[in-house]
């Protein structure tokens, strides 16, 4: 399942859990779980849209206007690419 999800997200540029669940014919919760595991295992990495500052939000003059509604983006890591080349 994890391999299939990794393959699927490497094929597309945008995903929703429901579209992957549809195309792999698995439960949506499992897709979420697979993405969670792939991140834990270092095959994909979640990018932070919110600034990843050294300054803590509480001490930042711009915290109130900073983006708090992050748009989630992921990148496939070298480890993930290596695996994709094998499958």
């Amino acid at each position, binding site marked *: *399942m994890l391999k299939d999800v990794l393959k699927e997200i490497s094929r597309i540029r945008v995903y929703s859990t429901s579209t992957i669940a549809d195309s792999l014919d698995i439960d949506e919760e499992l897709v979420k779980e697979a993405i969670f595991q792939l991140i*834990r295992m270092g095959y994909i990495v979640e990018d932070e849209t919110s600034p990843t500052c050294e300054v803590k939000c509480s001490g930042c003059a711009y915290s109130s*206007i900073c983006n708090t509604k992050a748009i989630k*983006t992921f990148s496939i890591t070298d480890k993930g690419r290596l695996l994709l080349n*094998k499958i």
Partner: protein
Amino acid sequence: MSIIALVGNPNSGKTTLFNALTGSNQHIGNWPGVTVEKKEGKFKHKEKQYSVIDLPGTYSLGAYSEDELVARNFILSGASDVVINVVDATNIERNLYLTTQLLEMGVKVVVALNMMDEAKQKNIEIDVCALSKSLGIPVVATIASKNKGLEDLIEKAVEYASSGEQPRIDISYGEEIDREIDRVKGFLDSSKSDHPKWLAIKLLEGDEEIYKLVEKKFKLPEDLLASIKEKTPDYELEIVDKRYAFVGNIVSLAVKKPAREVETITDKLDKIVTHKYFGIPIFAIIMFIIFQLTFVIGQDLLGGYVAGFVEFIGENLVKLLELINSPEWLQSFVSEGIFGGIGTVFEFIPLIVVLYFFIGILEDTGYMARAAYVMDGLMRAIGLHGKTFISMIVGFGCNVPGIMATRTLDNKKDRMIALLINPFMSCGARLPIYLVFIAAFFPNNGALVLFLLYAFGIVMALIMGKIFSKVLFKEESSHFIMELPPYRLPIFKYVIRSMWDKVWDFLYRAGSIIFVVVALLWVLSVLPFGVEPYSQESILGRIGTILAPIFAPAGFGTWQATVSLFAGIAAKEAVVAILGMVYAGVSEGTELVLALQDVFTPLTAVSFLVMTLLYTPCAAVLGTVKRETNSVKWTIFMALYTFVLGWIVAVLIYQVGRLLGF
């Protein structure tokens, strides 16, 4: 005294169960050597005392976090007589993954199938007996929050702990891996380890902690360890995948879920709003409607009240100062400096409130991710990284976090381009400038002009991005994937909070940095003594007069416009504040609008607006660019190229407009 360990995923109801069992009889401390909280409690069952350890919530028993390690080490230590695995019945696949790992360790596990009421509400049917049979261990349905099933759970746990039964689980990881597991297990068996099969699996999974443990405690042959290291990358994912397959089989036998909707509302909406051809026009229409509503609600309905209030306060404060015979300079400072300058900025708050309220709604529904996606296609088509638009969206609030958000771009090319074009996004501080000129020259087409200014900023960013990618940076862009979260109804509380944060920041800046700029420039505008305040003879007037010819080709070569633009480099809100102040006698927005109508024409107003959109960003943005690039050269480049670009476009607009007879 028997010891029961509670283990489970975060939010599975584990702590609720712990509290229900132990009541106030708890002790909270820390696990030795780590900052993970240790919760211990006691309870009596059938006159016998039991100790309960609430282990940290964890999804797995790997070595990915301190919580996982603490839970794993405690279970491995054999200190507990039985482990109660709390499983969230509404999310059974994820939770049973941990259960399989516990079973692989060979410990005695009883499953507390918790939140059964919520599972029922979601029409999830679980055959508890079938689940128990498949897993080979006791499973008890519980609702910890209502104290249901707890007696039965403890009964089963105590009974199972004292029985001679041992959990059995047999997951096949495929012929090759199974063979390797047996080979490694053989060596560990001979080294008399407690959990030989589990250790063998974890070694082949590439668990570094276990590798260190085995290397230290059991003298495995060097060549075996080397071969394990070599095979790990291929086996790691396979092992986890097989566990999920095992869980999947069990779930298919014991759980019935309602059929998945073939096409959810999110899917249906996404087909329209992320459409290849309609996506961008829909985004444009949504933004236009928001601008239209901003004017209707913010200006027509609410605008007059705030303007009237600021005027009322200003007039009465000046009267009070006159009454107490305060110095004339103070009256002038309060009247023209504070209320003519900063007061003018305050009058646009209703529009800012309404605009950010609607943007907050867009963000909270999940639409902004779609906007980034539809723009991603366009960005890629012109050779820019799709993530650039995400930092641009952030820049609509303020360019400082927008520039910081470019950190998500991996390679230097993508990051530098995103950083250099971010200031073309119309930040909230530029909004008062747009609004005062719209009120003066385009009162009937406010939303359209505002929309065009925002759109023009995006277009200029794309053009400059394309030029930079061709001229300055030529590396390839990297690939990324974007998640489209399900749509949801906006939560009013969050929308209001998001709006308030932005408005508060606006007020805070108006009361701090803009106040300082206005105060400084007010002093310059009334000195030297003896000259007409706010006149061309004042220090400010003289400085402005020297610099004004720069902007003459763009049609606004007055000293007032010039000083306001340079003051805007300190903070963009200062542009309107200074315009309000230097047009002497102006004490509130309507009069500033009239003053501007005397000095500007619709054409020079447009060229001035475009200049303010494109020219040098504020000092805070330049400071951020310096910090992010660690380069004075790039900071100066940013300050200069934006100024030159703004000037060129403003001049073009004015000169072409004049030729066309505007």
